[in-house]
């Protein structure tokens, strides 16, 4: 029973982690983190401005479904 509880807790933890990752990807937070890593920058207004410029046209070209 105790073991079952541990498995359940681990699964819930994993699900929570996946949900957070999913939201970060959908809301472009992961893309920003990747941008910072790629450019060797830390977060700042200037870095975000550069990210927005880089991402802007690609985002605008992405169709939203009906």
């Amino acid at each position: 029973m105790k073991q079952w509880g541990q498995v359940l807790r681990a699964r819930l933890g994993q699900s929570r982690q996946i949900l957070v990752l999913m939201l970060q990807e959908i809301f472009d937070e992961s893309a920003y983190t990747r941008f910072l890593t790629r450019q060797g920058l830390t977060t700042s207004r200037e870095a975000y401005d550069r990210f927005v410029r880089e991402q802007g046209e690609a985002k605008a070209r992405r169709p939203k479904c009906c």
Partner: protein
Amino acid sequence: MPSIMRIFGWLAVSAAGLLAVLTIALHRGEQINAMWLVVAAVCVYAIGYRFYSGFISAKVLALDAHRATPAERLENGRDFVPTNKWVVFGHHFAAIAGPGPLVGPVLAAQFGYLPGTLWILAGAVLGGCVQDFVILLFSVRRDGKSLTEMARAEIGKLGGFVAYVAVISIIIILLGVAALIVVNALKASPWGTFTIAMTIPIALLMGLYLRRLRPGKVLETSVLGFVMVLLAIWGGQWVSQSHLAGYFTLGASTLAVLIILYGFAASAVPVWLLLAPRDYLSTFVKLGTIALLAVGIVALRPTLHMPALTRFIDGSGPVFAGSIFPFAFITIACGAISGFHSLISSGTTPKLIRREPETRMVGYGAMLCESMVAIMATIACCVLQPGIYFAINSPAGIVGVAPVQAAQTISGWGFPITAGEMNSLAQAVGEQTLLNRTGGAPAFAVGMAHIFANSLGGQALMAIWYHFAIMFEALFILTVLDAGTRVGRFMLQDALGHVWEPLGRTSWYPSILATSSLIVGAWGYFLWQGVKDPLGGINSLWPLFGIANQLLAIVAFCVATTIIVKMRKASYGLVTLLPLAWLVAVTFTAAWHKIFDSNPRIGFLAHAQQLANAAVLAPGTSRLIFNDRLDAVVTAALILMVAMVLVESLLEWGRVLSGRKLPVVKEASFVATRFATEER
């Protein structure tokens, strides 16, 4: 699990699914619980995913776990990023789920809950999911190429050109009809108009907050935006009862002009200022509301008051004219088969897929989820008394504008309703009237408010829930409007750049203004046409959108079948050929009816002729006649182009199958994935 247990498990799922489908299909004359639809959907989806998509993965596509995807081979941390399959799944679902699966099923409910439900289940499992899955996989094997590029490479130049024209046509028609839905939801509604108007400054504030105060904190900004939207809904109630109400009580024409101006402005201002924050806010609200609706349905387990089949299966429906075949199948596109999804499946998603077998869960699985959203929309509108449903969704041209007259007409159809009941309902949701609110959004909002109010908060919150639902749909649609106008503008600029290079520069303001004007002018024209249409606009524009969307699905299935034939898997070609044949039958028949049917409520030309035959032409009639003829020409042009792609595909299959042409698949070369070794 031991295999015998697994077999019994699947037998139990099949038995439950069969029982639920039979209950839905065979019950007549008594109301059924909405949970039957939920159980039928869950079981059918589970069986479809486990067995049909498994068969496609193994036999038709032969998914290769050892083959590196473009996300791995071309990884650049920007477009190509190997991503966890659940994350890609969520990302893909958020991109494909728009207002379509909420609106189409509501409109098709005029036939009763049965036709729409069966089409959503069968269409998704055998068609829509297959399309999304195979196009995603084929794009993955071609370095993330778009549908247009694949059509050009596999079918020919014409295929590519038609895909391009179909996409831009769909965008224009979609935006026109989507804007019309917003207009119909907000006309004479100060509360709704105020709330939606507030989303513009809220999005601007979010954009500034994100850029200046908390760079990169999108989730935090979205939560703040959501709180502000909730305050706007709450404030809307106060505004609607104050002296400010007059400023926000607008007619359809005024709202149409404002939305056209908004669309133009939104496509010209920087992405970060309006488009991106509105997109984040809309996605946040969308995911939350869909989850909330699912919880509400399961918690309330409501009874469906709409019968399985209504008298309008004969084609005389007030919401839109036309019989079940073909019109139910073009009215519900998203949720069953939506050609537009092929653009997403060959857009961002293939560049994120980490392992080839994951295309099954992302492509097939995410579409199943969207189909479930369509089932929830069916439930939301079918929990309403049919009389209320028809009072909201019937245009003034059919039931009149006076409540007593409308109630008499609708009661005469066998769906009893009184003017008093409609007035009480309007008061309960904080509106002046709910009559003639065509377009599907208000009916869905009333149904959703009913479910929420009965399971999460009580009747006192009915008006708040109604306006929350209206805000949710309008926000959704305006985001599609922003994004669609901009995508259309870029597509136009890409094409015009071949004619004169400066026009192709996406940052050159004269080009931005010219192309934005063209795109906004095009969808604005359809919107204006809908607003001025005495039959409410939806009757002519939604079928046009459905036809265009399904025609794009035909192009996608032509591409998929061509590739399957070239893979020397023609014996499995029925997997894509069957939905293709069905869509050809549906769209071509629907187009024929829309152009040539002698019933003026269905045929564009017959309607134009009826107007022209009047002894004295009323002011504006020549414009209506022109619009009918324009719609007929647009429909004919789309059908003709897709017919050419179909013929080109058939010829290509013939050449390959007869051995006159060597089947060459234009895939990227095989490279072994490093992820397979890492997992060992």
